[in-house]
């Protein structure tokens, strides 16, 4: 579904991604783990068009999308839930969700999807009119995910959805990620919480200072001693 070939991304002089390649198949949950500053967010931003890779290819459903503007990438079916949620704080929950469907014209479909999102996140329905800036962290995360789903994506990019959330919420969020995946949405999940991520993922990549250093099925990787030592805590 998505194929990345050897992309390089720079911030000024900083070489943030050094020849990264990866592949995601239809229907999978793929997780990308790595330390702080390894380049995970950078990779997601390159896919969703917020950053332009200097070289390399990004192929989504047989189309080259590297360097395209974010708007056209959303249109093609990729939604990105950015790090730190980034909900539109001074708008209501409902307005945020509306914006998720900004590019869509099918009123009926939008309405359906809104129902679906509310079904997935009943909490959001309760808070429909509340300004999203006043939601709790977990609720904002749900909103960010719901908002992304409103674009009816085929590929959903999630950047550290569990960050800063209470354990209870972390569990809820992961449960929902699995649910979303079961409805047929492919997911690329970036996580610090590698234990959790590996437990729901099909496959995983490990990124270190801008390079992919390991990949394999989630099971394999969670068994690997090296990975355990570096990312899963030495217990």
């Amino acid at each position: 579904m998505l194929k990345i070939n050897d992309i390089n991304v720079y911030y000024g002089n900083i070489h943030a991604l050094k020849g990264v390649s990866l592949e995601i198949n239809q229907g999978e949950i793929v997780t990308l783990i790595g330390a702080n500053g390894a380049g995970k967010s950078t990779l997601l931003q390159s896919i969703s068009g917020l950053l332009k890779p200097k070289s390399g290819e990004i192929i989504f459903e047989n189309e080259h999308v590297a360097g395209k503007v974010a708007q056209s990438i959303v249109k093609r079916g990729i939604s990105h839930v950015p790090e730190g949620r980034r909900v539109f704080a001074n708008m209501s929950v409902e307005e945020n969700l509306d914006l998720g469907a900004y590019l869509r014209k099918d009123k009926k479909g939008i309405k359906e999807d809104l129902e679906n999102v509310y079904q997935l996140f009943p909490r959001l329905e309760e808070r429909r009119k509340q300004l999203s800036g006043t939601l709790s962290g977990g609720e904002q995360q749900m909103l960010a995910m719901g908002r992304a789903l409103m674009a009816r994506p085929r590929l959903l990019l999630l950047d550290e959805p569990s960050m800063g959330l209470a354990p209870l919420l972390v569990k809820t969020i992961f449960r929902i990620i699995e649910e979303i995946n079961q409805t047929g949405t492919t997911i690329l999940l970036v996580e610090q919480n590698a234990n959790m991520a590996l437990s729901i993922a099909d496959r995983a990549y490990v990124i270190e200072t801008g390079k992919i250093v390991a990949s394999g099925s989630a099971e394999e990787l969670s068994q690997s001693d090296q990975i355990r030592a570096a990312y899963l805590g030495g217990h």
Partner: protein
Amino acid sequence: MTARTQLLKVENAGIRFGGLKAVSDVNLELKKGELVGLIGPNGAGKTTFFNLLTGVYVPTEGSISLDGERLNGLAPYRITKKGISRTFQNIRLFNELSVLDNVKVAYHSLAKHSIFSSILRLPSHFSGEKEMEQKAIEFLKIFKLEHVLHEKAKNLPYGQQRRLEIARALAANPKLLLLDEPAAGMNPQETEELMNLIALIREKFDLTILLIEHDMLLVMGVCERIYVLDHGQLIAEGTPEQIRSNPKVIEAYLGEEVS
């Protein structure tokens, strides 16, 4: 628990923002040398509680005292001078300043030379600055930051920024250190290093620490006691074991069993 003297006493403290009671009726006590955790769901009011302790917000009710001295209504910088220092949930370093200067800023209240002597470059300026610099360098060695002394804070990797923030907070010479989610955004490996660091500074600086954290491994691993906040109110208090099995906490925060 040995009979340790009381350091911080919070009685019925609370604050409201408009109609919202962000924190209400919180009673909390810390003894010298303790390491205590503060947990609770997102938006429970934990950070707000820190803000009350440090004077960022003035409590609308209740009282807070450190070593028997009332802190209510004091400006944040005064509270810092009295001995409470903190880190922030979202890192707040002085980005354009070097690592060394970040720490020197925290030493500011110890500086004896006046603006006047600095402007005239009197000897007291040079001796004062020199002393600060030496102290800061010594200090940064403890935090393994001596190799980046002249790097701008914003250019440090995330983990080092967190460490620098803790170092800076300690440089202000607190009796009580407040850490707001120090492990946020760290992977389990980094979290473990952080736990070691906390243990180290506690020993070295004779500190009392109050810690907010969502990472249960860390909280349960290092804290002697834990307070649980929900909807601005304390719902539980106790040792890690007690908290882990407290049904209220499980319902509000932990979810079924944590491993």
